Every structure is written in C-alpha cells, then in structure tokens.
C-alpha cells in the first residue's frame, strides 16, 4: 500500500506539469511546437508569403516601386516578347544541358578512377573538390583572367610557338556561353565525384565478385552491374545540378556580366537587371515566377518521392 502511495506521489507532480493548468503547464506540454514556431513563422512569411507576393507583383504594372494596378498577364506577354529573355531562355538550355551532362560524366569518371584502390586517394580527392569551397565570384574572376584573349591561354599557346592559335570565346558572342560551361564544370564536377564515390562504396561487393567469377572483365562489371545500380545517385546529381544551373547568377556576373552584347544572359541575371537595373519590377517578378516554376517542377516530385520513401523505411 505504502509503495503504491509513494510511486503515485512521484508520478503526480509530473502529470501536473504535463496536463496541468496554467501557462507553465501549457508551455511544457507544447514545448516542441513552441520551439519550432519561430522558424515556421519565418519560413511561412519569407518563403511562402514572399513567393505569393512576387506572384502578385508579376500581375501588376510595377516599375521602380511596386504598385497594385493589376494588368493580368500583360507582364508575361512582355516578358516572352523581350529578346533578351528569349536569349536567356535559350542560353539556359545550352548551358544547362552541357553543364549538367559534362559535370556528370566527369564526376562519374573521376569517381570510378579514384575507386581503383588508389594509394593517395585523399590527396586526389582534395584537389578535385577544392573549387567547391570557392565563391562563384572567385571562380568567375579567376577564369575571366585565364580566358583573357590577349594575356591568358591564347597568349600562353602563342609563346609556346603556335602563333595562329585563337581562343577568344570570352569576347565572342557566339561562344561566350561555353566559357560559363567550362568554369561551371570546373567548380561542380568534384562534388559530383564525391556523390558518386559514396554510392560506389555502398555497392554490395558480393555481386561484383560473383560477376567476376562468371568471367566479366572490369569494364563489363561497371557497364552492366555497377553503373545501373547508381540510378538514385544519378537522379540526385541531376536534381542538384539542374537547380544549380537554373539559379546561376554569380558566375555570369563575374565571368561575362551577361556580355558580350547580352549574349550570355541567363534567366537569373535577366531577373536581376530588369528589377534592380532597369526598374521593370513587374517583368522581373514575372521572370522570377518562371524560374521558380522550373525549379519547382523538378524539385517537388523529387522531394515528394524522397520523403515518402523515408516514411516507408520507418
């Protein structure tokens, strides 16, 4: 009897705290919700609220300052009839396609090479990955100097004796977009390597051993067994690189500044110049909505399946 008494006595105060009356009890009971509520409020306002706000602005006649005279889809019509926006859209396809495919291929190749029981693996990994620690402004400025037609690589090759060598992509409207690809791949392929390497290290060795016993050689093992198993990693890489490409802003600013002659504008730089440079806020907002929709179309299904798989795992 007395034992029950003491145990219920020790339990009682705690229960009082849990569902007891008063502000303190309420805070103790909902401590977790209270703790995350500032972040929820911040994200609801600064992510979701601002998204809606930008959407609303894109339907108005805002110029330098927002006004709320609604003009329907006029700004979207203006956006799509703007030649620079069209260049930006066509550029993002060229840039995105090359940047994503080359980064993926280089990253995968590096991962496979490094996975061959390399003695100084850490040393190579460090070198391939360091560009990832740099700002795109740093990368862009460095490559602007290297690709400088008068003093950079072109001159280097001239001094080596090949006098007629021409490498003026940076100032050539037709080829300038490819300089962005070069710098972008240099910056991002190491990260792709890291992702693939982690995946390679996670593959079940017994399958590989079995294949080798069946007489498959190294290349066949990679082609038929290992690479097909990297499917989820390919998807992750694709999603990350795609949104990196769509968001690309700093690299363009530092390397080409959209030039020569608007030839290297991307949607992100277009949005910035329209909004903050040319006081066409509504057009800028419309372009931001287009950028957002593109990213959302790629990321939302990916997140959805990722979160659902996690729930299935539990």
């Amino acid at each position, binding site marked *: 009897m007395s034992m029950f008494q003491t145990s219920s006595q020790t339990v009682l105060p705690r229960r009082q705290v849990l569902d007891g009356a008063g502000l303190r009890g309420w805070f103790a009971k909902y401590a977790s919700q209270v703790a995350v509520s500032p972040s929820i409020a911040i994200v609801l306002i600064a992510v979701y609220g601002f998204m809606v706000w930008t959407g609303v602005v894109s339907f108005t006649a805002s110029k330098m300052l927002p006004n709320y005279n609604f003009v329907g889809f006029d700004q979207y019509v203006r956006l799509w009839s703007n030649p620079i926006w069209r260049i930006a859209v066509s550029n993002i396809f060229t840039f995105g396609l090359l940047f994503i495919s080359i980064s993926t291929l280089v990253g995968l190749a590096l991962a496979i090479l490094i996975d061959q029981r390399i003695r100084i693996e850490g040393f190579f990994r460090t070198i391939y990955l360091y560009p990832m620690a740099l700002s795109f402004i*740093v990368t862009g400025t460095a490559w602007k100097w290297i690709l400088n037609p008068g003093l950079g690589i072109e001159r280097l090759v001239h001094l080596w004796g090949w006098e007629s060598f021409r490498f003026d992509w940076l100032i050539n409207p037709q080829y300038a977009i490819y300089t962005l690809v070069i710098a972008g791949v240099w910056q991002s392929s190491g990260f792709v390597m890291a992702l693939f390497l982690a995946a390679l290290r996670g593959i079940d060795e017994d399958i590989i051993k079995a294949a080798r016993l069946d007489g498959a050689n190294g290349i066949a093992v990679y082609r038929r067994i290992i690479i097909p198993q990297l499917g989820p990693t390919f998807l992750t890489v694709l999603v990350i690189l795609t949104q990196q490409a769509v968001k690309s802003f700093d690299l363009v*600013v530092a390397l080409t500044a959209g030039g020569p002659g608007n030839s290297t504008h991307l949607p992100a730089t277009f949005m910035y110049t329209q909004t903050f440079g040319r006081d066409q806020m509504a057009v800028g907002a419309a372009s931001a909505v287009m950028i957002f929709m593109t990213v959302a179309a790629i990321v939302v299904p990916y997140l959805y399946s990722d*979160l659902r798989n996690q729930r299935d795992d539990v």
Partner: protein
Amino acid sequence: MTYNPIVRQRGVRHRTGRIFIYLCLGLIAAVYLLPFLVVALTSLKDLEEIRDGSILSLPKAPTFEPWRQAWSGACVGLECSGLKGFFANSLMMIVPAVVVSTAMGAINGFALTRWTFRGSNFVFALLLFGVFIPFQIILIPMARSLGALGIANTMVGLITVHVVYGIPFTTLFFRNYFISLPSELVKAAKVDGAGFYQTFFRVVLPISIPCIVVAVIWQFTNIWNDFIFGTTFTSGGNVPVTVALNNIVNTTTGVKTYNIDMASVVITALPTLAIYVFAGKYFLRGLMAGSVKG
C-alpha cells in the same frame, strides 16, 4: 570502407593499367590546380611582367605589393581603400548569422525528430522546401520588407536574410543527424522527467558536436561566398567581400591591374579555402547532407 576489387589482373597488363589510371588522375589534378596556380602566380608579378610573360611563367622578382594594394589600396569606384573594410564586413556578418541559424536548426531538428508532435513531418516538409527555392522569387519582397523594417543596406538586414534562408539547411542537417541517433537516450531523459530544453541542452547537445561542426562549416562557406544577397540588399561601404571583389575587378579607371585583381581573388577565397583544407572531411559531409539523403 571497402573497395571494389576491380583491378585484379596480374602482370604487365595490370601494371600498364595502373600507370594509365595514375596518369589520368594526375593530369586531371593538374587541370583542377592550374587556375589556382595561375591566380597565385599573377598576384605575385608586377604589371610589366604580366604583359611580357605568360600566365604560367614564374615571377622573376616576386612582389607582395599587389597583395598590399588589394588589402588596403585597391579602388572601388573612386574610393581606394582596398578590401580590408569589406573583409571586416563579411566577418562581422558571418559570426552572428552562423551562430543564430545553427542554433535554430539544432532546436528544430531535435523537435522534429526526438520530441515529435502531430504534424511534425508536415512541418519538416514545409521547412525543407526552403532549401530549394531559387532566391529570385524572394528578392523583391525581401528588399521591400527590409526597407519597411528600416534595415535596408545594413549589416543587421543582411544577417537577418542569411539567418532566414539558412534555417531550412541547418534544420535539414540536424534532423538527419538526430534521426540516426538511438532514441533510447531521449526516452530515458523523458522518463526521468526532464523537459524539452533540459533534454536538449543536457542530453542531446553534448553528442551533437559532429553535426554542429558540419552545420557551422556549411553556413560559413555559404554565407561567406554569397553574392546575390550582398549585391541586392547592401551597397557602398556596407557590401560583403565578394561584392567588393567584383567591384574592384570591374572598376575601370586607369590601367587594368590584373595582379591586384588576382591578389583580391586569393584574399577573398582564403577563409573558405582554409576551412576546406583543415576540415575537408566535415565540409564534404555538409555537401552530402545538403543533397537530401537522410
């Protein structure tokens, strides 16, 4: 760590194969290192040497004058006081921004995994979306809001922006970390009657050091390297170092001083490079965690 025993062939074929692999790795490593080498070499030459030599030629008389200029004499427009003030801006901005966003991420991660409530999964999904938004969609409203709050073009404003858009990332890191911890620890604390914050500070935080390191490194690198927020929400003397670097390079009064530009590049890159060299392991973990694999 296990290895794929792919290269098992013996004899000459095996050895030429190995040499080929090392040759490939070495060549590619050279390509990755060259830009940094070129930048460093250029920053140590005077302008005459730059005009006469090639980007790869060694400086005949190495000089740190461009570095001194970059630090305290390079011009942004008409103001010629170098990067030092802007470097200080970035430092002043980064400490509070990293601390606050990491702390909030840690509490969120704990609340969403080890002190769950109805709808906590939904809350996580809500926050997680913030990791992926292209910032173009929030630039205009944020510029207006900072103006309305009276913190446009101030450090406080820029810190706020970095905290706000850092929270989704740090929450993701800590959530992924805590979910891998054994839940018995927290359950035991709960049975002993410990409250939310007691459990967080006494039980969970002490074993979260690895994740704190990852989150801090990630936030530091991202905030230091930021350009779009800095250039949109600050101007003049208040800009962070990345924006100042871009302004120095694009200042077109007089002769183009490539050596000073390149010294500025190295100075701007130094903090994040140092972190990468000294804590590369954690840096990589941050990158991987940022790719949403929990």
